Structures are given as structure tokens and as C-alpha cells.
């Protein structure tokens, strides 16, 4: 089990991801999404996903965008960081900072399996918007 955590240490790039329904149906949530996820040996992690073709702001203040600019930027990216740990094949992210305020202080549970040099990270079933589904992220070493 210690080996699973050791294998996860390092930086990973999103190779593929899918929404997986209870009947096994797979849907790519947003084609062209890129992502970097890092697990450090001292127990910290960060995850950032970004959709394609994001629009630049007209101004030079990242925290001074218009309502339209910030709504677009916030609807096309996901970023958080904090600590991580593993218990068996369960992976926990303890979120310290997130662009999404609701996740600050949250503990997120994932399961991990390895397939060759890929790590497959799956969420627990998400049930708050109808029939349950999971997100499955396939990660490859960032290199």
C-alpha cells in the first residue's frame, strides 16, 4: 500500500477524462481540456484543469476583470491545492485553497489504480444532480 502512494508522487498531466454513468456510458466532459496534478513527497498537492480557447482579459489586473471576463474565466478552469494522503487505494485531498470557495476546508475522496505508467483517479459517485455518476481522470507522467 505504501507503494501506491510512492508511485503517485510526482507531477502528472491529464491524458484523458470522462464522466462515467452507472451503466458504464462514458462522456468526455470538455474536449481539449488540459490539466496538471502534482503530489509531493512531503504531502502537498495541487490540481489545475483548464478548458481550451480561454479568452484573455482586456486589462492587466488578474483580479480586476469585468463581470463577463471573470465569469468566462471561472467557468473554464478549476484549481485547488492542499495536502494529500492515501489509505489503501483511497486518495484524500484536503483542500486548503481553491478558486471555488465552497471547497476550501473540504476533504475529497478518490480511488487510484495504476495501468502501466498511467494513474487512473476516480471520484466517488456524485449524486446531487440526479442519477449517480463518477469522473475518471487518466493521468500520465508530466515529464
Amino acid at each position, binding site marked *: 500500500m505504501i507503494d501506491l502512494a510512492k508511485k503517485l508522487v*510526482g*507531477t502528472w498531466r491529464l491524458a484523458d477524462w470522462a464522466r462515467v454513468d452507472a451503466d458504464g456510458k462514458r462522456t468526455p466532459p470538455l474536449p481539449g481540456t*488540459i*490539466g*496538471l496534478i*502534482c503530489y*509531493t*513527497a*512531503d*504531502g*502537498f*498537492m*495541487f490540481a*489545475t484543469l*483548464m478548458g481550451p480557447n*480561454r*479568452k*484573455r*482579459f482586456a*486589462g*492587466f*489586473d*488578474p*483580479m*480586476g*476583470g469585468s*463581470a*463577463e471576463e*471573470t*465569469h468566462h*474565466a*471561472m*467557468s*473554464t*478552469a*478549476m*484549481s*485547488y*491545492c*492542499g495536502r494529500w494522503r492515501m489509505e489503501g487505494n483511497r486518495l484524500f485531498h484536503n483542500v*486548503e*485553497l*481553491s*478558486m*471555488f*470557495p*465552497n*471547497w*476550501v476546508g473540504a476533504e475529497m475522496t478518490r480511488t487510484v489504480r495504476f495501468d502501466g505508467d498511467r494513474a487512473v483517479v476516480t471520484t466517488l459517485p456524485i449524486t*446531487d*444532480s440526479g442519477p449517480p455518476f463518477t469522473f475518471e481522470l487518466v493521468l500520465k507522467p*508530466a515529464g
Partner: protein
Amino acid sequence: MPAKPEQLIGSWRLKKWILTDGNGRVTEPMGPNPWGLIIYAADGYMSAMLAMPDRTPFAGNDPLGGSPEEAHRAMSSCHAYVGRWRIDGESVVHSVEMALWPNMVGTEQVRHYHLDGNRVILKTPPMTRKGASGIAELTWERVAG
């Protein structure tokens, strides 16, 4: 003498963020108690995330589904980017691959560093943050393993 990478590898918490304008006026873009975490990974990747404390949660659970007002408030109180890092003389260079702020993607962010015990001060070129322009100084404290 340039720092060794080992002196920066690890995780650092933000203690103070000040911005000094051309007239010597000092402001704190995220107030007196900003939250922040910089992670310098041993394999050359990094993440910087900074936020104001006490941000308002969204009404819904979808991180990408906030209203324009919620999104505007969230992004006006948070700054995040990831990429690679390297030491170049007296500076640490962040090569930004992804950022909440789209304009930052593909840029090199050069920060002069000053190491002092378990703290590092990163000094920026002139920039604009939350309406104030000038040179920013961010004080970070190493998180004990």
C-alpha cells in the same frame, strides 16, 4: 551566490503581501491576512495560489456553474497559476502553463528571491493587482514537513 534548488523545494505559506507604488505608498492587495501556498516540487513543477480569507461560497455545488456575480467575486479574491520553475541567478522563474487569469498563460514570471532562515521574500517586477500598481513583496514561510 545563487540558491540551490533544495533551498526552495517544498511548500511555503504566505505571511504577508505588500505592494509599493512609485510614490512609496504601500497597500495590501489581499488585506492583512492573505492566504497563499506556493509548492515547488522536486521534479521542476510549481503551483502558486493566493486568496483572500472569508470568501463567500457559491449557492450551488458546481465549481464551473457560478452566477456572474459569484464568479466575479471569487476571481476578484483569488489568483492561481501552475507551471515549471527554475533558479536563474538571484531570481526564481515561474514558466506559467496554466492560470486562472488567461493572460498569464505562456508567460515567464521572474521573482527576485531573498532567503532568510525559514522564510523567503519574493519581489516582483511592477504589476497591477486589485487596482493598485507597483512592486510587490510576498513573504513566505516554509511549511515544516
